């Protein structure tokens, strides 16, 4: 493993499209809530979530969520479920 490149922190902005603000606007399943790397234009709101990861961006890589209210949360890169997922 290249230790230099693995130390570089990359910040992602993730998006969740919302048409409301109640908990029912979020679909929560056993994998959590789906978020996407691209903004979602067909919704009233886009909830922006910043997350940081290190190393190569491959399926399964885990990014740490850095939003203060969601601190401790993680986002897993799962392109097998769709582009930018």
């Amino acid at each position: 493993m290249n230790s230099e490149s693995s130390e570089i922190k990359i910040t992602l902005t993730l998006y969740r499209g919302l048409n409301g603000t109640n908990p029912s606007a979020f679909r929560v399943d056993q994998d959590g809530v789906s978020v996407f790397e691209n903004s979602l234009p067909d919704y009233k709101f886009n909830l922006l979530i910043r997350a940081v990861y290190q190393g190569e961006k491959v399926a399964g890589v885990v990014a740490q969520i850095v939003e203060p209210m969601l601190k401790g949360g993680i986002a897993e890169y799962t392109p097998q479920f769709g582009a930018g997922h």
Partner: protein
Amino acid sequence: MNDAEKIAQVEEIVQSQNSEKIFEVVNLALSIQDEEDRDLYLLDAIRWLVKNRIWQKAYGAAQLMSDSYEKSQALQEVADYLASIGHLAKAFSIFAEAEKASTAGSLAEWQKAELLHNIAKSLRRTKAVFKADEVWEKAITAAQKGEESPSSQDSYDSSGVLAEIAEYFATEERIEEALSVAQKIKNIGKKEKVRRQISAYSQQIKQIA
């Protein structure tokens, strides 16, 4: 009093378990101006009323909600309670209202499918097997429609509901039906994952047998 103050009071009453405030809590929640907040806190009040066995008031409050996800949820919870105490005729009539509320035009297809799946599970628990399957059919149809959404998020969430239904069938040892629902899932990753889960359930059933 503004919405934030009303919400704080509703939360305080619900947490205090003060039964003298039963009538005040619904009026307070109903007076919240913001429609989404109103439905959310009416749902809280309704849950509190059901917990205190005041189902008529809870049912009345649910009928006053706007056409929302929370309305269907509230009606389902009132019907669940009635079924649990043996008022089956009234429970089925309110389950039907919950089903109708779940098809509100403002809801995303995955939300409709999720609500219908929950209603079907409740009906199944009350042994209304045929009606439950009928509602599941509607849930599957709504989820499949949602999968065709141009929004990748709505499409994925709809696949998620189909996966949940398939897995639920597997937990009920309805393996063929579970596989049939899994087969319909458009998202390949989700389909493969749920197929593995069904296979695991199927193996467990064989080992027990």
